[in-house]
């Protein structure tokens, strides 16, 4: 997660709306979702460089979890979409490579009493999408398919450091003419130093 300037988000008005932006593939294919019933068209800004219509999908995630992520308490969030059909599951396996590693942004906007926006979107969370997965509950006709998109924030370190051995050969593999570790093997506990 990278904190925007106003990461301690306090809604100024009595209403607000939440926006989700999944930057997968080219800009024309970005996925835009919002909590606003009926969708919301927003102009381009620094995050969503094209702007566009955000589709309503109810609430993909519980708001308390989201606020924990905004406050930096959680290092990853799961966005779940229950009740998808088998076609969506098939497409999930096709598009998994595009989605994995895509940037995910979560932003909010204040709405006034006439449900009109006050200001522009505050983008509060920036994360990276992991590989989406699907699950099934129940069997046959009553089966419920759910797609889950894990999104990790910057607090969760995704990079695994390479295994490093402090041996002459290990150091040669990193830098072919570096003799830094050549005498490491001679550094042993209890070794008697032969002073000249």
């Amino acid at each position, binding site marked *: 997660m990278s904190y925007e300037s106003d990461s301690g988000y306090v809604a100024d008005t009595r209403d607000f709306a939440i926006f989700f932006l999944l930057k997968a593939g080219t800009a024309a294919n970005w996925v835009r979702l919002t909590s606003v019933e009926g969708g919301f068209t927003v102009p381009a800004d620094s995050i969503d460089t094209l702007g566009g219509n955000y589709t309503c999908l109810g609430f993909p995630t519980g708001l308390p979890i989201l606020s924990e992520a905004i406050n930096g308490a959680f290092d990853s969030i799961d966005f779940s979409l229950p009740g998808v059909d088998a076609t969506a599951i098939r497409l999930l396996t096709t598009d998994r490579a595009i989605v994995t590693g895509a940037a995910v942004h979560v932003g909010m906007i204040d709405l006034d009493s006439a*449900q009109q926006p006050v200001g522009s979107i505050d983008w509060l969370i920036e994360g990276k999408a992991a590989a989406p997965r699907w699950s099934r509950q129940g069997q046959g006709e009553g089966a419920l398919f759910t797609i889950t998109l894990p999104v990790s924030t910057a607090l969760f370190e995704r990079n695994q450091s390479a295994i490093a051995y402090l041996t002459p050969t290990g150091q040669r593999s990193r830098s072919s003419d570096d003799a830094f570790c050549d005498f490491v093997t001679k550094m042993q506990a209890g070794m008697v130093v032969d002073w000249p």
Partner: protein
Amino acid sequence: MTDHITPSLLRYSSVRWRLGGSIHGGGESVFGESQTRRSDGGGRWFAELGSIQINTDAHAQLVEALLLDWNNGNDKVLLHRRAAPLIVGGGSLVPFSDGATFSDGSSLVSGQVNAEFAASAAKRATTLSVRVWGARAFMGGEPFTVIHPTMEDRLYGTARVLSSVADGEATVYSLRISPPLREAVTSGDQIDFNKPRCTMRLDMSGDEPWPTYEPGWLSRINLRFSETFRL
């Protein structure tokens, strides 16, 4: 074809319309006031038709035909909010087609309310300028329908009458509406105050809407609908 569900088609004994959405709470302050905020940006319509009576074979066949045709809620329906127009007033005065009136100068009277947008409005606008003929003065709370090119028939209601100006035989109102407009409108687009209705889908996930029959073909069912954005 989209079914029109009117109060005369399904004889329900109770109906409940609500503009629902999501409210989120942020805990309680020390003096006991809970912090709640709305996050749906205006909400969407829900309707519950209660105790639809099935007394005869004809009723049973009607309900069964409808349920079969709606494909478990997959097909859209147009649910009408009222049986009769809410705001008939003096009505529009309509002459004969050649412009002539009766010999005493009076015209035919239409019970229909004619209305159009007096100005264009963007998607999600909540303040509209509306020109209305043949209605009594608006008070707020009037339901109406706008037929959008892509979002189809959508239900709105007037929340406040901000101003009204007489314009010949018509009156131009500035209205605040809810929910926000589902699609942009242009000046001159028609507004239907006579048969307010909404594009909805039957909610099959909750109570099973299929009737349970008692002896003598007597049954009552409840149907729940919610506004749909899947077109």
